[in-house]
């Protein structure tokens, strides 16, 4: 039986390799063109209204082989939203279970598995990639670069994510296929030892591997952003007028560079403990707390990895619809850098109740309270920017304001948690869950939506449906506040986190939280509908400056690029003279070109 399996695997691997080799040899054939000699012809595709460039292969192969930063940005975005849907469905199942106090719909083990996949997916497969999507598409445009510094590494970084996702999610289908021999990990996203060492389920190994790959991906992406922002800036862009979003991407990439490799090493140590009998985290080895230190040394910077670029998006978008320049631009940059440094000095605030030395606790409390200062600087600057401004409540602006509101609640609850005596009471309750969800969903996701709507005309050439976007906003806003305020209250009442069942006294608040979650979920359905239908058949934008930023003197480089691109596209189709073929065109791969 075992031998048959080995032989089958060998055959599968052999077939795979031959298939790859065949594909590559064909690809090399029809790609035998010289990109410079082709004259860079472009024409407007029927469907998308975007200019296609003849150096790109057509159809699905284009997406598999692209190294263009904009294409890769779109890929990151599509991947991130898909992961968002997976994590969202997981959490709706959990919230459905939590609508009643006893276990009704799913068992406790499946609940744990869903909770683990929800956390990991949202942080590593939605959060980090969706920010990379914005970064890839817009940083080069904003700083006047031709592309990212290392386009191929950029593509590798993206393509590591799909296998990472497959590995992280594989436990669910494998549980059915193998009759439970392998099942989804139930470690929670923090993977605390000794629990994560003792769960013998091989599904945990798969998840750790997937996480490891996603970490490699994030690190490669970060190196690329740093190199791009340092060395690829256009002539007119220097440090003094670098835009705020690029500043936050730069700082974020720096944090990634110092924290993700550490996560990678810790994951390898965990894998070794699980599979090869090492004792890094065993009681007679490094001890279980070692994991917590390593994990949170990565884990706290990770939360700032997730929040800094959204702060950058808000700092970029919010002034455009306030009709005023960002108040105290310099201080927003300084506070970004300050957060980047301080974020490495607060990790033990996740470990206040583990019995570590009180003197250590006190110093980590001090730094944690200090990090609230730069965060508050930013918040005040956003508010002062809006103060007396000419506010235009378009969808991206609504989401920015929603960000600020939710960030205030999330931040203030964080400051409470940073105070040791308060934390000893609230640790491991729903209060913590409420705190970080105000930030990750209430703030980060809102900023993501703001960016998606703000640049929608730029990457699709079309406009979204405004009414639907406002529905999306209000449902997300009301839903998130209902859910997460209910969680804060549950936490004050002492409801512990990470349970599928609870005492009857918590029933009402849990019901509100569930209702809020489904309101949010409904809002996201509207969002998907809006994006898909508008992308396909929304009204074409009529100018290169759909937000009329010129009027307030705040047009940024990416819109100038968009304007140039529109001009180019029009010239090319009108004259028709540039639609030349090059060497690579006379091939069947071109047949479906027009559909792309």
């Amino acid at each position: 039986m075992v031998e048959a399996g080995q032989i089958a695997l060998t055959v599968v691997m052999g077939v795979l390799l031959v298939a790859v080799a065949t594909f590559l040899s064909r690809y090399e054939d029809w790609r035998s063109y010289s990109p410079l000699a082709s004259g860079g012809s472009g024409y407007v595709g029927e469907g998308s209204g975007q200019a296609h460039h003849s150096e790109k292969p057509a159809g699905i192969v284009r997406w598999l082989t692209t190294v263009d930063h904009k294409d890769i940005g779109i890929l990151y975005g599509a991947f991130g939203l898909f992961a968002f849907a997976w994590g969202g469905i997981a959490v709706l199942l959990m919230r459905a279970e939590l609508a009643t106090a006893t276990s009704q719909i799913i068992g406790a083990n499946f609940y744990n598995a869903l909770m683990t996949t929800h956390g990991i997916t949202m942080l590593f497969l939605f959060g980090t990639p969706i920010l990379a999507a914005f970064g890839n598409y817009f940083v080069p445009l904003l700083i006047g670069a031709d592309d990212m510094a290392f386009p191929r590494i950029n593509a590798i970084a993206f393509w590591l994510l799909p296998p990472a996702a497959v590995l992280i999610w594989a436990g669910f289908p494998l549980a059915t296929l193998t009759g439970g021999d392998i099942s989804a990990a139930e470690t929670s996203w923090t993977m605390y030892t000794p629990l994560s060492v003792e769960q013998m389920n091989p599904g945990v190994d798969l998840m750790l591997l997937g996480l490891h790959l996603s970490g490699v991906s994030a690190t490669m992406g970060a190196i690329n952003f740093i190199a791009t922002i340092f060395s690829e800036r256009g002539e007119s862009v220097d440090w003094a007028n670098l835009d705020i979003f690029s500043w936050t991407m730069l700082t974020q990439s720096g944090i990634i560079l110092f924290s993700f490799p550490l996560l990678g090493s810790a994951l390898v140590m965990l894998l070794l403990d699980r599979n090869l009998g090492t004792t890094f985290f065993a009681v007679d080895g490094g001890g279980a707390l070692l994991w917590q230190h390593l994990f949170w040394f990565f884990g706290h910077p990770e939360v700032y990895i997730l929040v800094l670029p959204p702060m950058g998006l808000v700092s970029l978008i919010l002034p455009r619809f306030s009709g005023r320049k960002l108040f105290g631009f310099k201080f927003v940059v300084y506070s970004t850098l300050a957060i980047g440094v301080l974020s490495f000095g607060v990790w033990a605030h996740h470990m206040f109740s583990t019995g570590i030395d009180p003197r250590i606790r006190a110093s980590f409390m001090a730094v944690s309270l200090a990090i609230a200062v730069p965060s508050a600087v930013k918040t005040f600057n956003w508010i002062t920017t809006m103060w007396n401004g000419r506010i235009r409540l378009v969808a991206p602006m609504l989401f920015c304001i929603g960000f600020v509101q939710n960030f205030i609640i999330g931040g203030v609850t964080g400051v409470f948690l940073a105070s040791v005596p308060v934390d000893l009471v609230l640790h491991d309750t729903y209060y913590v869950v409420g705190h970080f969800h105000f930030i990750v969903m209430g703030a980060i996701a809102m900023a993501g939506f703001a960016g998606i709507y703000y640049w929608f005309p730029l990457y699709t050439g079309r406009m979204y449906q405004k009414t639907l976007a406002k529905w999306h906003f209000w449902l997300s806003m009301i839903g998130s506040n209902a859910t997460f305020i209910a969680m804060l209250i549950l936490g004050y009442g002492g409801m512990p986190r990470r349970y599928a069942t609870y005492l009857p006294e918590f029933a009402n608040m849990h019901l509100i939280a569930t209702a809020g979650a489904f309101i949010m979920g409904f809002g996201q359905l509207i969002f998907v509908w809006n994006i898909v239908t508008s992308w396909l058949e929304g009204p074409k934008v009529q100018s290169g400056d759909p937000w009329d930023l010129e009027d307030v003197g705040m047009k940024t480089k990416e819109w100038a690029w968009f304007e140039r691109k529109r001009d180019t596209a029009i010239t090319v189709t009108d004259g028709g003279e540039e639609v030349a073929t090059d060497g690579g065109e006379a091939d069947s791969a071109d047949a479906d070109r027009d559909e792309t």
Partner: protein
Amino acid sequence: MDEQPGLSDEYRKASPWPVFVAFGLAIFEVGIVWPLFPVAVGGLLLFVGSIVGILRESGYVANPWNGLVTASVLCLVVGAVITLTTTGSVHLRGLAVLVGGVVVLAAGVFGSLFESTHA
């Protein structure tokens, strides 16, 4: 008129290798951790082959066959050290790297011979 706004002239806008570099690494890792011998060897081949391919494409190595031979030396050394110094399942993992290295070496040698007879 800006013919290709935002597009670089210097880079080809497409490369077949990144997908396979990424998938090769993933497959190799699974093969090593679980240990599944054929998966580890296959993943290694895909990974090493694509790395050499991408390096050649971007001009960092001139001759892909020499690249394969160089890479095989690395695999052979690492594989041999692990294989010789360990027992049990770790031994098996080392063996996978070693066997992968042998195949890569064979590919490199065969490729350069083939090319020189056809040149």
